[in-house]
């Protein structure tokens, strides 16, 4: 295979220095994101909290003018309300897009997690919810089937008939509108080795701690401008909007 271009020591040193400069400016972790958000650390080229907050916002949300104005109002709200970034906030969610295998097929599901304190000194991520079991028809929960109204005369003999013979419809035999805890279903599938998490494809973080806004944090790789963990979306939201959004995030 031919070489693309000859290597020279000067070229390699210059590239190495450039990479180091990028690494220093990159927001390499959520830990670093939080430190810059809270004013505990700073981008090497900046010296104010507002400048750091603007720098944490992705290039996709600082233009056109309308988006830029929203971004600036968002940053103002952070400063005026002295909002701090913490993974332990009850308004902070991780949304992991996963591939799961089930009955020789692979499906996209979203697993939602939150952090909690199981004891004073411990912190853990824990599963909060899942979306995708219904969308992928892994379970069907919106239709119902009948157990005969005379089954009591048979001492409910048909339970060993209709449910055992139709395990794929088992959810349809419950009382109408009984909620199904899909997280429990998912975990039971995992426990019984019916389902397996093959990979985590992408992760987004949603936060509702800034008054008037929900924002999204993702890891972006745009090495010509900002890269690393950045705020990729800001949405105006009232407290009611936030409650509804996070409720829908954890279930279908």
């Amino acid at each position, binding site marked *: 295979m031919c*070489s693309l271009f000859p290597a020279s020591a000067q070229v390699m040193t210059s590239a190495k220095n450039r990479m180091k400069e990028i*690494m220093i400016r990159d927001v390499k972790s959520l830990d*670093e994101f939080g430190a810059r958000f809270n004013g505990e650390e700073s981008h090497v080229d900046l010296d104010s909290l507002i400048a750091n907050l603007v720098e944490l916002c992705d290039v996709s949300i600082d233009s056109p003018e309308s988006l830029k104005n929203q971004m600036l109002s968002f940053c103002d709200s952070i400063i005026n309300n002295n909002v701090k970034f913490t993974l332990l906030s009850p308004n902070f969610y991780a949304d992991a897009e996963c591939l799961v295998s089930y009955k020789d097929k692979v499906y996209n599901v979203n697993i939602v997690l939150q952090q909690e304190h199981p004891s004073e000194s411990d912190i853990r991520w824990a599963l909060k919810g899942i979306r995708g079991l219904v969308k992928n028809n892994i379970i069907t929960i919106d239709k119902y089937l009948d157990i005969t109204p005379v089954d009591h005369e048979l001492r409910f003999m048909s339970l060993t008939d209709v449910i055992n013979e139709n395990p794929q419809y088992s959810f349809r035999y419950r009382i109408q509108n009984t909620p199904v805890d899909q997280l429990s279903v998912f975990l039971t599938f995992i426990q019984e080795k019916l389902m397996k998490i093959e990979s985590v494809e992408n992760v987004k973080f949603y936060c509702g701690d800034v008054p008037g806004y929900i924002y999204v944090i993702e890891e972006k790789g745009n090495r010509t401008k900002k890269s690393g963990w950045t705020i990729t979306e800001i949405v105006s939201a009232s407290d009611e909007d936030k409650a509804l959004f996070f409720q829908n995030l954890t279930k279908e």
Partner: protein
Amino acid sequence: MNKSIFYLIFSLLLLNISFSSQAQTSTLDEETRTALKNRVKTKVEDFTGLLGDIVNQKLSQKTRLECVNTAKALFIGQCLPYKVEENGVMVNHRAVFMQTSSVNRSTKNSQLMSKYLMRQYEMGNYYQISIEAIDAIRVDNIYKVGDHYECMAYWGQRYVRYSKDGGIQYGDFTKKGIRCYITAVDVPGSERIFEISLGDVYALETSLLR
């Protein structure tokens, strides 16, 4: 007299166990955290240095193979599946993974660290490879997890494949993250000892070398 000695030894044993338990659940002061972060940084630098030596054709095959075994020992479970007691049950863990990426592939590849290290040693059909850490720039905060501590460390890695004429066939720059485990062990009559083991390595982002 024998009974007294027995009770003395038994009491000392109980005392030792309670000290160990205390060490496992107590929090770290700031000075200890800073010292541990520096040690984590050193451990990661040990790994990145060994990786560079494993692919360095100027070293003998014997030396390079020794580097593979030394690198394996840096990782939790020594790159084999392992078990850890957690809340009264033994939890199974798979062996450590290394995630790699390439600008020529849209997906990342995960493989056992032991396999990855051997593949770097064998180097396939490549003439010469250089793997160099730009800097182990950041160690994140240390968190208590059950009876041990964990943190993440990040560094930039330059990977270059050279042809026989010294030109670059392929080169990329990857941001890497590594999970680090810190366990505290109380030695009777001595200070608390912290052991650091490395864990899964993630390829966070890859770009073409320019």
